[in-house]
């Protein structure tokens, strides 16, 4: 930052540039115009969303696809509150994100001014940290700090709320303020003693198991995990967030665990004697009923966040630190082992309990099967619902950062904007959003953003004209009383897409699946495929009892 005086807005944009920000997803308003005015002279690209929630999910999708910190921006008041779902979503899934909001001028704060809302107050529970800037001289350091906090330790969203008169206030660079972060010291390296204990515990185990969570991807530790599993011959299961943390086609990968987990992986959890849990917070969707979870196992819990240790599941041996660092430490110490009987037992079970989705007809499993054969190494994004679990089961992912889903918050409407963000960050990859008709309608306006910004994504709307997961729950637990889960059949998603400038397609017969998907993938612009499901099936396995061992498949 030079010697000349500069405004808060200019200082912000310069700091963003110096942090390596290439793209901001946002929506302007009265309280952010000084920043937009500065962006016009910047190398940073601004992607104009159609709703601030879309901008937030785009930044989140960008972060998940690239590993870089995603940035979104909204104006004060309603602009800021529209970010809330996106922030909560990023917070629950530990996605690194910086959100910038405009605020009313300082003298008006607290007076219920036009478009004023206490966004720092609102977002305390759903951000890693937030700032209400009091003067322009704080801007450079606070913005730097926001990026540092978002991208280190347990990653997460950080919000900068900047009053409009702070954006226009002029200050001299030497006045810039540098408070310190005394209280923020994330542990990176694993305690050597604990590492040694973990190694000997794994050595004595007869039925060891690795649970891979989203933290493995966040730490870019995927290859190290493969190395550990290969050396020690330990089977691996994954959470929904951990789907891209281990190659799904690896012979030691036994698939999704938890409430909708595979029979063999849930069996593995219930019968393992030592579990190495890596970067997972034992969320309730992954554990199923907690009182019966992994009762035979001594659990080694590796997590960057000390507060996750023994929060949900008591851990026998905790190791706090960065998953990549700890895996490196482990890989250096473990010796080669074989667990032939245990692995064979799980394989036998896997053979006895194949996924039962049909390989014919216009159904989600069949569409995903055909799609897989057509496209090599795509980034798959999902929305939330039945199609999400189907995708987790029926679309193997073998590359890192290639499965993007709303795991913790379960945000319907995440898919379309997250796919746009992912594609913006990985323009050379094919990005496909698997959506449901309910989820798609929540943020379908972002198709217009994808078209105007020339960020082409492919969206498959698994259309059963109903809220599939709700219907499934009503099937199982509410005596098939289908209250408020059915939509009318009035929306034509292909025409809706075309009206926004995208390519629109419809599949209603099996013979149309392959040719239509081919056209959509070759469209070279954003394409929406309305897949009218002829036989909307429920998604199984599903845990129905008081342990992972009681399920319907």
């Amino acid at each position: 930052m030079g010697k000349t005086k500069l405004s808060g807005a200019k200082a912000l944009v310069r700091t963003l540039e110096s942090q390596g920000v290439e793209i901001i997803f946002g929506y302007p308003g009265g309280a952010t115009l000084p920043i937009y005015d500065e962006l016009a002279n910047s190398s940073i690209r601004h992607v104009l969303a159609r709703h601030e929630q879309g901008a937030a999910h785009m930044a989140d999708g960008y972060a998940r696809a690239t590993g870089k910190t995603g940035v979104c921006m909204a104006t004060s008041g309603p602009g800021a509150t529209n970010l809330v779902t996106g922030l909560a979503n990023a917070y629950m899934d530990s996605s690194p994100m910086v959100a910038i909001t405009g605020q009313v001028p300082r003298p008006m704060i607290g007076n219920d001014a036009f478009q004023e809302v206490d966004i720092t107050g609102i977002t305390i529970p759903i951000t890693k940290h937030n700032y209400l800037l009091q003067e322009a001289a704080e801007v450079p350091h606070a913005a730097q700090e926001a990026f540092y906090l978002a991208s280190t330790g347990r990653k997460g969203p950080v919000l900068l709320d900047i009053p409009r008169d702070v954006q226009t206030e002029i200050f001299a660079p030497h006045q810039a303020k540098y408070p310190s972060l005394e209280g923020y010291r994330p542990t990176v390296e694993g305690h050597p003693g604990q590492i040694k204990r973990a190694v000997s515990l794994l050595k004595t185990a007869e039925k060891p198991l690795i649970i891979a969570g989203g933290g493995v991807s966040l730490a870019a530790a995927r290859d190290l995990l493969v190395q550990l599993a290969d050396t020690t011959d330990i089977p691996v299961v994954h959470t929904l967030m951990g789907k891209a943390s281990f190659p799904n086609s690896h012979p030691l990968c036994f698939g999704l665990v938890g409430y909708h987990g595979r029979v063999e992986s849930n069996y593995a959890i219930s019968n393992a004697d030592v579990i190495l849990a890596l970067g997972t917070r034992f969320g309730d969707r992954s554990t199923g009923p907690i009182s019966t979870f992994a009762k035979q196992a001594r659990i080694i819990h590796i997590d960057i966040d000390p507060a996750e240790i023994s929060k949900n599941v008591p851990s026998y041996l905790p190791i706090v630190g960065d998953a990549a660092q700890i895996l490196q430490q482990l890989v250096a110490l473990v010796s080669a082992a074989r667990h032939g009987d245990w692995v064979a037992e799980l394989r036998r079970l896997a053979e006895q309990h194949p996924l039962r989705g049909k390989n014919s007809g216009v159904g989600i499993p069949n569409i995903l099967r055909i799609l897989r054969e057509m496209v090599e190494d795509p980034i798959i994004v999902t929305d939330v619902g039945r199609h999400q679990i189907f995708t987790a089961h029926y679309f193997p992912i073998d590359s890192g950062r290639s499965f993007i889903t709303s795991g913790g918050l379960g945000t319907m409407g995440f898919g379309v904007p997250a796919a746009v963000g992912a594609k913006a960050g990985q323009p050379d990859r094919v990005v496909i959003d698997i959506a449901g008709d309910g989820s798609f309608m929540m943020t379908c306006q972002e198709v217009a953003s994808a078209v105007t910004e020339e960020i082409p994504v492919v969206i498959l709307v698994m259309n059963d004209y109903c809220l599939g997961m709700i219907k499934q729950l009503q099937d199982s637990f509410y005596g098939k009383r289908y209250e408020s889960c059915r939509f009318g059949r009035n929306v034509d998603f292909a025409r809706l897409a075309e009206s926004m400038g995208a390519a629109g397609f419809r599949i209603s017969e099996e013979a149309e699946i392959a040719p239509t998907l081919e056209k959509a993938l070759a469209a070279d612009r954003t394409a929406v495929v309305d897949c009218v499901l002829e036989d909307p099936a429920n998604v199984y396995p599903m845990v129905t009892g008081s342990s992972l061992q009681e399920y319907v498949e």
Partner: protein
Amino acid sequence: MRHTISVLCDDTPGVMTRVSGLFSRRGFNIESLSVGHTELPGKSRFTIVTTGDDTVLEQVRKQLQKLVHVIKAWDIKQAEAVEREHALLKIEVEDKRRAELLQIITAVQARIVDSSGSIWILEVTGDAGSVDNAFNLFMDYRILESIRTGKIALERGPSRVMKK
């Protein structure tokens, strides 16, 4: 079980909301909370009394420690600390019971900090038990208003949380 947690943090706007909000949103209980400046410039220190088993206490402490403005959050063991509460009581004094009241005031080491006619304001300081005790004794008189601070606590011995 009752625990006392000490929290040293940056004295910044909103830090109180961050600390107290964490308790309510994670379902932790606050029995009392007091906060004030310390010998360290720009730092505040909370003393929070909470209830729960050891697992809950450990979660509270770790979640507090995660707040960016929190420098240290730790459990204060009762046996190793000096604890104090402060109370003010406004009492209406009948002439015929004045002598008896003065005796109690002496016995509980309270002080009369204001008197306007028959209305006195008494000040009581001590650990939670002795303040409770004083309140019990003053119950017999006409208490017009009373107020208690939360507990504050310091560990005995040379330990210090942070050097200047």
